[in-house]
């Protein structure tokens, strides 16, 4: 707000004609007059004794400010400066001041000749003559548009800031609500560890995870104390060197105040200093005791299931064997059946999910491994005296194809044992796999040393061939052929790799 000016009284009178129009200042040497004329501050003088308080003097600065020529404005009331953007209340105040002969200092929106608007800091004062009567008004104008615009902008900016601030606070509040809900629902504790000071801030759920009340003091030493003695050193180390693996994550056993054992998982983001050194850990904690227990139970169940499947094969084998005891004629068939079942059982053990089988067994996903598994009973595959040698390109074999392949290999091996290389001293079987475009060929070559008499029996023209045909052609959509070489029987199989991988 501009200050109220003191009343101005020119040292030399202004000269006016008889009808009141301004004639000039008293003498051009009058320093005051010269000052008023020359100043860059727009100044005007009005004569309230004339009708409508007209302008009797305007300086050049005024004309520059308002855009009017002197001739245009002299004799007029300066309300021409007002316009649609002028605040009526302000205008009234100015009018009142004039009416009552009072000084006024006020900012008013005025219009230039070209219509443009500016903020005018008007400082008007009455001038009295020697008798004390009102003789003139003298006023200065000042374009304060920039100042007031800036003020307006500042206020608007403040308002915006206030709104933005409120909005962000709300957003943060909402976010915190969601976090509380999520962690609450998930029973996640929140924690914050200052690595420099060792100070630990922990939520109530965090304390609950540890079986403590929210009112109890809970710092890092208390936490470490709660850790099971088996895990304590590991946990202490982890907090000492938190960024060994990037993110901070650790699981450990705790002993609750009631001596119950629990499992806690703590995870955190690492806040670092400018030098990269870890300063703070901010994270969540979770009681994973239930989950671990459930996992363990699931594991146990799966292992039990796998064992029962294995057992089933043993039981079926037993039933067949027993049944055959009673019927001598059925014995050869029963034996053949049991051999095939045996091969299937071995293959089955290897298509159970990896987490189910014991640590010593691995699920083979490739033909080479499956062949090893299936042929192991027919001779130690790794010793120098091995009788079965498997080599060549490896291809993936899926679960569906595993069963069929088990039957096929079983058949070939049994025949080799009964009539072929595996039944002759010194005889060997070489199995070679070769990729051929989209296909893979499996060559089963039997070698019987020349010194031994070879029984050129056609292996199982009956049931064996039917089974082979079924498994190779109908199940795996492959092809097979047989030939007698100089050293023994050779069976050739061909499959599409895609089919085997199913």
């Amino acid at each position, binding site marked *: 707000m501009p200050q109220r000016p003191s009343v101005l009284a020119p040292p030399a009178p202004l000269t006016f004609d008889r009808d009141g129009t301004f004639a000039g200042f008293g003498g051009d040497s009058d320093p005051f007059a010269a000052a008023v004329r020359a100043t860059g501050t727009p100044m005007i003088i009005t004569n309230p004794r004339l009708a409508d308080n007209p302008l009797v003097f305007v300086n050049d600065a005024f004309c520059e400010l308002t855009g009017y020529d002197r001739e245009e404005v002299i004799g007029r009331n300066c309300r021409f400066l007002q316009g649609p953007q002028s605040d009526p209340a302000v205008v009234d105040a100015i009018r009142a001041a004039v009416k009552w002969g009072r000084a006024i200092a006020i900012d008013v929106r005025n219009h230039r000749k070209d219509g443009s608007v500016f903020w005018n800091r008007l400082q008007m004062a009455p001038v009295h003559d020697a008798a004390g009567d009102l003789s003139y008004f003298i006023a200065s104008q000042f374009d304060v548009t920039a100042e007031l615009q800036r003020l307006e902008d500042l206020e608007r900016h403040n308002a915006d800031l206030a709104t933005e601030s409120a909005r962000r606070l709300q957003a943060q509040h909402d976010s915190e609500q969601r976090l509380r809900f999520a962690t609450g629902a998930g029973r996640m504790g929140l924690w914050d560890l200052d690595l420099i000071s060792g100070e630990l801030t922990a939520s109530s759920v965090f304390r609950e995870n540890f079986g403590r009340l929210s009112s109890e003091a809970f710092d890092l030493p208390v936490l470490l104390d709660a850790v099971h003695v088996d895990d304590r050193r590991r946990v202490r180390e982890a907090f000492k060197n938190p960024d060994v693996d990037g993110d901070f994550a650790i699981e450990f056993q705790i002993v609750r105040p009631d001596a119950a054992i629990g499992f806690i998982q703590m995870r955190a983001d690492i806040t670092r200093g400018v030098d990269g050194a870890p300063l703070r850990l901010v994270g969540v904690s979770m009681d994973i005791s239930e989950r671990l227990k459930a996992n363990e139970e699931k594991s146990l169940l799966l292992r039990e299931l796998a064992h029962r499947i*294995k057992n089933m094969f*043993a039981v079926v084998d037993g039933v067949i064997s027993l049944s055959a005891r009673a019927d001598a004629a059925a014995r050869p068939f029963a034996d053949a059946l049991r051999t095939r079942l*045996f091969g299937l059982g071995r293959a089955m053990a290897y298509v159970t999910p990896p987490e189910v089988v014991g640590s010593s067994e691995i699920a083979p996903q490739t033909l080479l491994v499956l062949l090893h598994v299936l042929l192991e*009973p027919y001779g130690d595959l790794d010793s120098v005296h091995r009788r079965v040698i498997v080599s060549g390109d490896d291809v993936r074999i899926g679960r569906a194809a595993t069963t069929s392949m088990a039957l096929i290999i079983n058949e070939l091996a049994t025949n080799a044992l009964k009539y072929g290389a595996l039944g002759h001293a010194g005889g060997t079987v070489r199995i070679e796999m070769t990729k051929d475009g989209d296909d893979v060929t499996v060559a089963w070559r039997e070698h019987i040393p020349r010194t031994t008499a070879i029984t050129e029996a056609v292996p199982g023209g009956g049931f064996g061939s039917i089974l082979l045909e079924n498994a190779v052609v109908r199940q795996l959509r492959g092809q097979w052929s047989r030939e007698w070489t100089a050293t023994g029987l050779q069976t050739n199989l061909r499959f599409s790799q895609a089919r085997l991988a199913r």
Partner: protein
Amino acid sequence: MAKLVNRTTILVVDDEPLIRSVAADCLRDAGYLILEADDGVEALSFLDQNPEISMLFTDINMPGMDGFALAAEIRTRRPLMRVILTSGRERPTAEQMPDRGYFIGKPYAEHQLRDLMALAAA
């Protein structure tokens, strides 16, 4: 192809009768004399009554006395007893196996069992 062995007597122990009888039949066909027991307790009483038993073929996972315990007990009575253990579960560690003991994992092929018995009897 059964070889006639000089009538070695094997004590076959398994709590699952079907499995046990299959093993017993297989070994009988190979020429051995077989005695079958349901569990460790029965096995020990057969042992006392039949001094000619020279080989023990027992399952490991049995309720009550397991195969390890049975083997250990028999060895205290008959230090030179040949011991062959079998199981469908994990392979036993070296520490778990009795001295000079053999192990065959289930399921096994009959010829594998016969070969192992021949090896153990030797």
